[in-house]
């Protein structure tokens, strides 16, 4: 290792850590980033888990922030190999009895989406026209909310209140402010009446971290997950991991020292200050100015710093930070001879070309029951899923003429089942899903499947160090968002330990490939370390 001392040491080479590393290096800082795994990018990950040549994004798939993501523009990632495809039909729900599908198109194709909704309800079509147009108009407001760190908070001040921002968002949309206090389900039910439309929106809502559809105070996620997000979904050519390839290239170009297979065991304190890290093999990497952790909250504070070095307040808040039960996924991957052909396609062939295909539900209630199962520590009896077949747009992701299906089940927390029970799920659940799938798309038989694989929440926890398999590294409930994420005392990225900063998904705005947690940490670090504000871009106000 070229020198074991650097200005800044970053723990964790997921996309937030890489973001942080690239900007700080650009600011002239000597940065070393350490990744525990043998591969970079964390959940920005693609693997041939079924059969050779079939690329599956078993963690992140929807790149819905690239058009507003500062890192993407500031480091010209397309020139470094990050190419995207923006499928025209973004999401679709198929039905067992072959009735017309419900489709959501790209953000600016409001009329096409409205036309699909109108099959079931003229009122829903109008609601989409009105609400999606506003969402498009306010997109940069939302972007600024994502890419701005919560304000610094002192224990003597009154607590940050996420509801204030949520209320003003509803009022910006011209909707009743009270809706901010309601559940996501309440919001969907209030503005959309058709059961089929509701069913699709329920499923879409939980895809982007919407805390339980039925938790009060989650109304914000109606705006965010149901209105802003569908329409912006992009896929990476060659698989999600190509975004990582471009980010890594950017880091190397900026002069970042990169070390994979270098798992941090503890953070070294010197006179109460974060002074570096020690790796599991005993090597030390010292930090002259700061240690930035882009891994989980508990991993950083409780394991690497150690509870003994924390104040009572910090120890309590970190210990009781919640993971799951939302955002806990099982990933299904199938290598296919041919892509699914849905019964519903006879009404609208678009369903076969929808990127995100929701399959297995007959009603909105089915989706609710499905979510409730996970909350009660049960694997849903109805083996429904949302899937995507990226090879329909990008032939490089599967062998010639073949197709790569990947999808998500929502499952209970990793700890809800024993290891043996998860193995049982792994051995049986894809078969159950396939039997149900065949009723929606008759060509989805065993014979059409070359090989399949199921990645359980326990795998997510062990492989990606996502506790409980929570892909957001912490629940997105009202008590753990914005200025309260992960808790008020550290929401501004600095911690009570001088020189130690947090930059992972446990921070605002949470999980998903936003690169925001890393970017927001950069803003704070530039100020604290008196670095040039390299994150600023004259074409961007956030």
């Amino acid at each position: 290792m070229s020198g074991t001392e650097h200005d800044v040491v970053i723990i964790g080479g997921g996309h937030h850590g890489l973001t942080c590393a690239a900007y700080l290096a650009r600011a002239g800082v000597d940065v070393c980033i350490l990744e525990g795994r043998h591969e970079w990018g964390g959940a920005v990950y693609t693997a041939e888990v079924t059969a050779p040549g079939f690329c599956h994004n078993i963690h992140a798939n929807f790149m819905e922030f690239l058009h507003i993501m500062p890192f993407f523009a500031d480091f010209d990632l397309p020139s470094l190999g990050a190419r995207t495809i923006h499928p025209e039909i973004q999401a679709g729900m198929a039905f067992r009895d072959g009735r017309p599908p419900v489709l959501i198109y790209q953000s600016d194709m409001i009329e096409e989406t409205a036309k699909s909704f109108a099959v079931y309800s003229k009122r829903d079509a109008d609601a989409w026209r009105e609400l999606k147009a506003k969402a498009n108009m306010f997109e940069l407001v939302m972007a600024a909310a994502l890419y701005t760190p919560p304000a610094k908070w002192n224990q003597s001040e009154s607590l940050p209140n996420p509801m204030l921002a949520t209320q003003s968002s509803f009022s910006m949309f011209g909707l009743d402010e009270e809706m901010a206090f309601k559940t996501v389900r309440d919001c969907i039910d209030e503005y959309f009446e058709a059961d089929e439309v509701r069913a699709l929106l329920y499923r879409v809502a939980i895809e982007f971290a919407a805390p339980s559809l039925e938790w009060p105070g989650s109304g914000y996620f109606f705006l965010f997950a149901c209105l802003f997000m569908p329409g912006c979904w992009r896929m990476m050519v060659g698989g999600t991991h190509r975004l990582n390839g471009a980010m890594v290239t950017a880091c190397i170009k900026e002069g970042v020292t990169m070390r994979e297979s270098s798992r941090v065991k503890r953070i070294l304190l010197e006179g109460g200050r974060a002074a570096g890290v020690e790796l599991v093999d005993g090597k030390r990497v010292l930090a002259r100015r700061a240690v930035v952790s882009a891994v989980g909250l508990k991993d950083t504070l409780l394991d690497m710093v150690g509870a003994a070095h924390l104040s009572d307040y910090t120890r309590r808040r970190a210990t009781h930070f919640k993971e799951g039960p939302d955002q806990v996924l099982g990933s299904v991957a199938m290598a296919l001879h041919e892509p699914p052909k849905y019964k519903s396609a006879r009404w609208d062939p678009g369903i076969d070309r929808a990127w995100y295909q929701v399959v297995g539900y007959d009603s909105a209630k089915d989706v609710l029951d499905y979510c409730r199962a996970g909350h009660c520590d049960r694997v849903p009896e109805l083996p429904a899923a949302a899937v995507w077949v990226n090879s329909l747009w990008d032939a490089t992701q599967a062998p010639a003429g073949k197709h790569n299906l990947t999808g998500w089940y929502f499952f209970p927390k990793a700890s809800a089942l024993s290891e043996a029970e998860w193995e049982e799920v792994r051995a049986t659940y894809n078969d159950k899903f396939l039997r149900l799938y065949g009723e929606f798309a008759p060509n989805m038989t065993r014979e059409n499947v070359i090989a399949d694989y199921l990645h359980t929440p326990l795998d997510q926890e062990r492989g990606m160090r996502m506790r409980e398999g929570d892909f957001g590294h912490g629940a997105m409930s009202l008590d753990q968002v914005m200025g309260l994420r992960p808790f008020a005392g550290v929401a501004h990225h600095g911690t009570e330990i001088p020189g130690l900063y947090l930059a992972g998904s446990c921070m605002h705005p949470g999980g998903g490939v936003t690169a925001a947690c890393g970017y927001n940490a950069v803003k704070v670090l530039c100020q604290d370390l008196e670095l040039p504000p390299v994150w600023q871009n004259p074409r961007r106000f956030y």
Partner: protein
Amino acid sequence: MGMFDQGFDAIIIGAGHNGMALAGYLAKSGWSVAVLERRTEEGGGLCTEEVTEPNFLHNMHSNYHPLVGICPVYDDLELTENGVEYGHPDVQMGSIFADGTALTIHTDMQKTAASFARFSQKDADTWMRLWDEVSGYMDLMVRTLMYAPPIALNDITRALASWGVEDKSEFLTARLRSMSVAEFLDKHFENDRIKAMLAFHAAICAYQPHVKGLAVSYPVLLGKIANWHVCKGGSHRLAHALMRVIVKAGGRVFPQVPVTQIVVEGGRAVGVMTPDGFVRAHKLVASSIDVNQTFETLLEPGLVPERTRREVAEVKYQDASLFNVHVAMNGLPRYKAAAFDPAIDRAWILNIGFESLADFEHEFSLVRSGRLPERPRLNAAVNSLYDPTDAPEGKATGLLRVFAPFALEAGGPEGWGAVARQYGQVALDRWCDLMVDDDARSIVRRFATESPHEISQKMINYRFGDWMVGRIHPKNLLEHRPTDELAEYRTPIPGLYLCGASQHPHGYITFAPGYNALGVIAEDMGIDKWWDRV
């Protein structure tokens, strides 16, 4: 700006270690370079995946790195400074025999001799003389025979003869060119098991012990018998380091950009076609993939001269591929044979089942006929012995390999689908039988298999599952590799070079094909050889 708009001085097809090393040197020479890779990840055979369960790092292809500290590329490209870390096992290799005895090869050759002496004092003495001799000329041999374009076998023989090799060496002789490794071993050693151990070393380097003529390279192989290295954190880490070398020097690596055609204008290679369109190569295109793809798939037939087409069609691949079993384990194995030689528990590369030279002949003839041995002979390695970070704390990652046919007598290449899992269990059982009872029952958590057919689908340049990308046979080595016409890394199409394992010397993590192609390119293009200062 698009990533390909400006074109590049050099386009390298294939991001295996040879292509990436060549790209690294060219980028450091000031060229703009792009490496285009068909797969989702760079590295080629430097491929590490968690195929059993999370945090168990399995090297899918390249596992044993033989030329660390010898190959000039490590220093030239500063791979250590760029993050590669190697472990050098003190017990390099071992054999466990059916009767509970064991042989071990140590980095400390006195210990190796002591292990041999328990089977034959005479052989132990012979081994030490042989070792002293090959150690003496190792650097010269490696430098002239590996890290330089091929020297014709006749020239090598003539040089040896005029040097008076028969008087000066007990082991080197002009007759080696017609001998097999087995004949060499029979000539100098008496004990079957020692011969099997030494032949095993050749076999895992793809030098089948009974192929006539391979004895000529065998002394060089023996010189590396104590230089096996494990790449800490997985072999893929070497690919990460190469990527950093290239990008730091201004080059680019683009995975998931399959080259569909090499474009020739006015008789000269000027670029490649990809799904993203044409990418211009201002100076050259270098292909690091196999010659069949290069000349039969990527070039329009009319552009390939008749002789080239004819000779490429004749290129032969190995008749023995590998069947891999990747194992997630509850701990390090302890063998019953440790009662005989405690060092066996620390031996990295294990021979299980080859107990005489006849065993190799039997095994390889079975494989050639497309049949699977009922009791597979194994080559086994537990990297966690020397790199505990490749598995969760207290656990271990294991690899079993069986020489195996690409096409099965029953079912052909696809026939593997029906038998792979079961055959994996058979291989595991044979291994576990050698462990102390507690381990034998409970050490395996999960395993994943990889058949020759799967290997050939994943690494398509490993044609017929041949990880050396061209058989190891006198007709396909030195000035004949891959064909007489193409042996010098140049092709009949100006601007198109060959830099992969199809070229001299062969596959494996030697970097030599890439390095030698670099030398030829430097001469043709007038690049100052900053790496070649005497």
